[in-house]
């Protein structure tokens, strides 16, 4: 263990560590605490400059219902779900197929294809913007959820393929060879050997993709424009323009928009971190 385990240090260090720990969390999450507290205040409190005291009136219900009743927030949330879920399924499935090919077949161009998927994954979005927008318009998909679903599926496939390929490499070759000797077809091998074995990776990948796509803002600005299809990131930023200084409503809206990935993270923490830190230990 490094640093030295705190139990083995001097009592003074031990006590100051116990004090520093909660203090540091409070400091770190101060901006979030501020947003949470602001989201339950009345406009009166905001105007009077009461940010840190107890709210004079608790407007939890008022503020949060106002977010849903007076704005398209409900629709934005639904749109985000409609975009995110198909992308999750689509890109993970395509990438599992591609990852299997890259991990378990030796063929000319294997490494080049792998490099293509990785490299494409790192390019700045702006270099894709104009052609992707044009293509979307030509296909008649501009300002529909399909515009976002197809683009995100294509783009996330790069990251997912990298991830899946590295995971499938770990499946023993003997397992696949023995199946082949028994006369199983390549598809059968994929279906009955590889697919069940990648299940742990699927969970990690799915939560990561959910978070990436849910939080996307750029493509939500570029590929859609109406309230009927706008995801929650673009929605909240449009609402901000209308709410101006109503920080209580802006805060409540932000909390609502941020909640789904946060809940997912706390529910599936281990998978999430395992996915994100792949590569941080070896290589």
């Amino acid at each position, binding site marked *: *263990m*490094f*640093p030295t385990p705190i139990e083995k240090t001097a009592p003074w260090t031990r006590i100051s*560590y116990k004090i520093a*720990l909660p203090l*540091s969390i409070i400091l*770190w999450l101060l*901006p*979030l605490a*501020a*947003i949470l507290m602001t989201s339950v205040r009345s406009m009166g409190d*905001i105007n009077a400059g009461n*940010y840190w005291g107890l709210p004079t009136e608790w407007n939890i219900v008022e503020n949060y219902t106002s977010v849903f009743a007076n704005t398209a927030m409900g629709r934005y949330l639904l749109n985000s779900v409609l975009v995110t879920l198909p992308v999750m399924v689509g890109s993970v499935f395509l*990438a599992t*197929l*591609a990852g299997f*090919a890259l991990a378990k*077949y030796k*063929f000319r161009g*294997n*490494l080049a294809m*792998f490099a293509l998927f990785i*490299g*494409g994954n790192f*390019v*700045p979005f*702006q*270099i*894709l*913007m*104009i*052609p*992707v927008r044009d293509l979307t318009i030509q296909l008649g998909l501009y300002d529909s959820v399909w515009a976002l679903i*197809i683009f995100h599926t*294509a*783009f996330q496939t*790069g990251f997912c393929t990298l991830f899946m390929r590295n995971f499938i490499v770990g499946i023993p070759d003997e397992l696949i060879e023995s199946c082949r000797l028994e006369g199983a077809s390549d598809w059968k091998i*994929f279906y009955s050997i590889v697919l069940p074995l990648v299940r742990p990776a699927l969970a990690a990948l799915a939560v990561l993709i959910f*978070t990436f796509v849910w*939080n996307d*803002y*750029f493509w939500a600005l*570029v590929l859609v424009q109406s309230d009927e299809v706008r995801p929650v*990131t673009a929605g909240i930023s449009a609402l*901000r323009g209308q709410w101006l200084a109503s*920080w209580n409503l802006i805060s409540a809206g*932000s909390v609502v928009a*941020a909640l789904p990935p*946060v809940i*997912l*993270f*706390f529910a599936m*923490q281990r998978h999430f*971190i395992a996915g*994100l*830190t792949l*590569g*941080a*230990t*070896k290589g």
Partner: protein
Amino acid sequence: MQKNYTQTWSQRAVPWLFMAPALALFLVYVILPIIQSISMSFYQWDGIGDKVFIGFQNYVDLYYDPQFWTSLWNNILWLLFFMLAVPFGLGIALFLNQQVLGIRAVKSLFFFPFVISQVIVGIVFAWFYDPGYGLLQDILALFGAGPLPVLADEALVTYGIIAAGLWPQVAYTMILFLTGLNNLSPEQIEAARMDGAKGWTMLWHVILPQLRPATFIAIVVTIIGALRSFDLVASMTSGGPYGSSSVLAYFMYEQAIFNYRMGYGAAIATVLFLIMLVYIAFFLWRMLQQER
């Protein structure tokens, strides 16, 4: 090698068939657009009418456009100051790498700003900096300093946005380092302790070399994050005041979407892409070396 000659066509096609759907989609939506954007940067185009070939004129215009240099300079500031996420993340990871009661919860609380959308992070920090309502002004007032409208100040605005970006980024690098610290070799540390190494010497000579993979990934994701910075700029300032907080990514978006200068936008995107390509090439080169 010998075996390849005896392989039939259908056998050789198998991996390509598995890859086909992913590859087709990726080529159409990622690889091809890169080429199209680069070629579009040699044209003048308003998005609707005819494209006119103008050679390098867009790049010449960029050279004489002060907004381009402001954005490029801001990207350099992002690259430099975003790098603070690496030592900060390491520092917090070292601080949290203990086994006291509730430490798992503490780690997740430190990490979770990363899963919040950057648009929301932008809103949170815009509120924090707000000259009328913001917490920052209250803190400054404690020290008797006057209100400091960070986001309205041309000299400070970019630093203000970078600071907001550091918050989730530090969370990210921290989790990478925590994973790395989890996998340290206890034997090496014990051996070093026997030799009397501790504190900074230990960190520098024994721990950091073992954390090299985590450090590498942390640097890569931080560089990419810095060059991709768009969401925060768009949601906090829209590049303002007077374009002073713009970055190449936002400048490109602005020119193409609001000013209908597609060719010019494509040229900006190409410059950004070429800068990124240096890092992508380095990363790929390193990765492929390990594969061999």
